[in-house]
């Protein structure tokens, strides 16, 4: 599904990613861990098409297409979803309006009719229960005045509605208390299917207690320095990143 080959990325003149290789197949859950400054967020930003990054070498293929050549909205329509580390507050645009506009943009891309208001409401009310969110969040401005946990739940709610093929979760666990973490994890688990893949970026092992990955990779100084199964995360937690050659955070 996703094939990252020898990806080099600069921010300005500074090399951040220095040859990342990663292959994700349908239905797989991959976790990328690593110390601060390793390039984890850069990787998620480059995959989603955020401006300000220069790819100097390498390529990213998604479903056989050149991902890096696509505009962000096209990536989204093709099924790539980024859950933001810091979801943006958008005063004046209601949550439900954004989600309906997003879903309809996707449907239009797929040659489907737009979903009408009533059907959409039924759908969204069904999904919102999963994230244990109050319906009033639908009518509030996107993320405005939401707590950290509410923002992250809202990201997963959007994923649940857009039904992407590939979810990139950028530190979705950061800033969550243990109850919110469990709810978010439950939401993520409910999205897991045979076909849908995940790339989870995280600092800490604790997320992995609730969302079991198939593979764990350690990103340090712009490269994947170690890959393994879920047990690698536990080992990291015990030994710290210095063990795999990362600098202390």
């Amino acid at each position, binding site marked *: 599904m996703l094939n990252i080959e020898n990806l080099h990325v600069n921010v300005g003149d500074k090399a951040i990613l220095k040859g990342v290789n990663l292959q994700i197949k349908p239905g797989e859950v991959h976790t990328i861990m690593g110390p601060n400054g390793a390039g984890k967020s850069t990787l998620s930003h480059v995959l989603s098409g955020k401006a300000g990054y220069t790819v100097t070498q390498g390529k990213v293929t998604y479903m056989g297409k050149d991902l890096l050549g696509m505009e962000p909205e096209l990536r989204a329509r093709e099924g790539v979803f980024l859950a933001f580390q810091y979801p943006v507050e958008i005063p004046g645009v*209601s949550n439900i309006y*954004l989600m309906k506009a997003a879903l309809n943009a996707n449907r239009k891309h797929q040659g489907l009719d737009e979903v009408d208001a009533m059907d959409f409401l039924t759908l969204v009310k069904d999904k919102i229960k999963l994230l244990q969110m109050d319906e009033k969040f639908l009518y509030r401005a996107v993320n405005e005045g939401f707590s950290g946990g509410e923002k992250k739940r809202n990201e997963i709610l959007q994923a649940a509605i857009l039904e992407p093929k590939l979810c990139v979760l950028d530190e979705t666990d950061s800033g969550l208390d243990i109850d919110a973490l469990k709810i978010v994890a439950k939401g993520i688990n409910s999205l897991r299917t045979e076909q849908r893949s995940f790339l989870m970026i995280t600092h800490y092992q604790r997320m992995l207690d609730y969302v079991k990955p198939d593979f764990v990779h350690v990103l340090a100084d712009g490269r994947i320095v170690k890959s393994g199964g879920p047990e690698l995360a536990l080992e990291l937690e015990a030994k710290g990143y210095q063990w795999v050659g990362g600098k202390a955070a």
Partner: protein
Amino acid sequence: MSGLQNYKTDYQQIQADLPGQSLAWLQQIRIDAFSVFSDTGFPSLREEEWRYTNISAIEKKLFSPSTNVDSNAIDQAWLDSFCLKDAYTLVIINGRFSKAHSSLKGLPETVTILSMGDALEQNPELVEKYLTKAVANEEHSFVAFNSAWFSDGLFVHVPVKQVLDKPVQLIHLVTQADCLAVSRNILIVEDMAQVEVIETFVGDSNAYLTASVTEIFVEKNADLTLYKMQNEGDKAYHFGGTYVKQAKHSRFKHHNFAFGSLLARNDVHTDLDMASECDLNGLYIGVKRQHIDNHTRIKHMQPHAISKEMYKGILNQRAKGVFQGLVFVAEDAQKTDSVMNNRNLLLSNDAEADAKPQLKIYADDVKCAHGVTVGQLDEKSIFYLKSRAIDEATARNMLTFAFANEMVGKVDNKELHTMLLGQLLQRFSQKSVDEKWL
């Protein structure tokens, strides 16, 4: 110079047609006003309060009062599109009251709503008591011009403790080329009374000049909400002045929507007595070469008054927006609580926003805040929307709409809210969304 001379000469021709000929006190006001105007002409860029707005085009052209009003020629459907159904309505066409288009059905007998012409005939003492008392001719020469030239207007008197059941709408309509439409309005809301007034300005695509001055008296514990919808035609010149005297514990809310005209200048000035409150909201949207100038002045004269102000502007192409806001706090006005904000969104490289917030504070125990921003749409927000499958143009449109809709959202009158929302959606259309979700 010759332009000013043309106005002076023209005044001699039209003077005899103005209302209130038999009232000596009014004639004196007009003579004094004419004299102030004659001495200075229209305000110029040299005056500090007019430095961002060049109105020399008005002087170069001679706008003159209309002579014949053919009310039948009015496109009723067009007029209806601005008319609230649930309101007492007065319509002024080309500067003159049109009885045929107005409706005061069901108005309580205790409440007075008249055209200014009728008020001067039926109740001149009451008009005399208030005319030029909220704003002096010396304020600036456009006010003097208005006092000398006004041909009609709206007179509203709401007696003590009366809560008017429906809003009052004044529709100011211009349909003639080169027309000069000058109206003078007086609103008096007596102690503990409450009323909602809507001033609507519309016109066709000809060049014309509207000059409207509204003097307002909100007495003790009284409550006035005033909406202004400025939807003038796109070649029109518009001057509108709202001058308010607020008594103790009174409340005044103003919502100022400036969407139309080629060049518009709007004054909103209010003087606050003890523990009174004012809430000034504004939204100006300019495109092409539109120029929209908002001038607000809040004077805290006594302690414990509260003033809140939020003006937002959206400027595209070569449009220019001006915000000059003064909050004045007198020495006696301790415990003043005031906040003034102006936010401008520039959608093109050639658009311009000039903002001049001013605080003059002579008391030492007050809370006064102010803020101004001039900027573009937030790139982070645009990226967020794009990452949710929304294309860039739609994302920008959504954010611009949201920026404006904050101000429309403050409109409590349902009918007016729907009308304003419709106008916003015309400018920044939102695809397939239920209104209640906006």
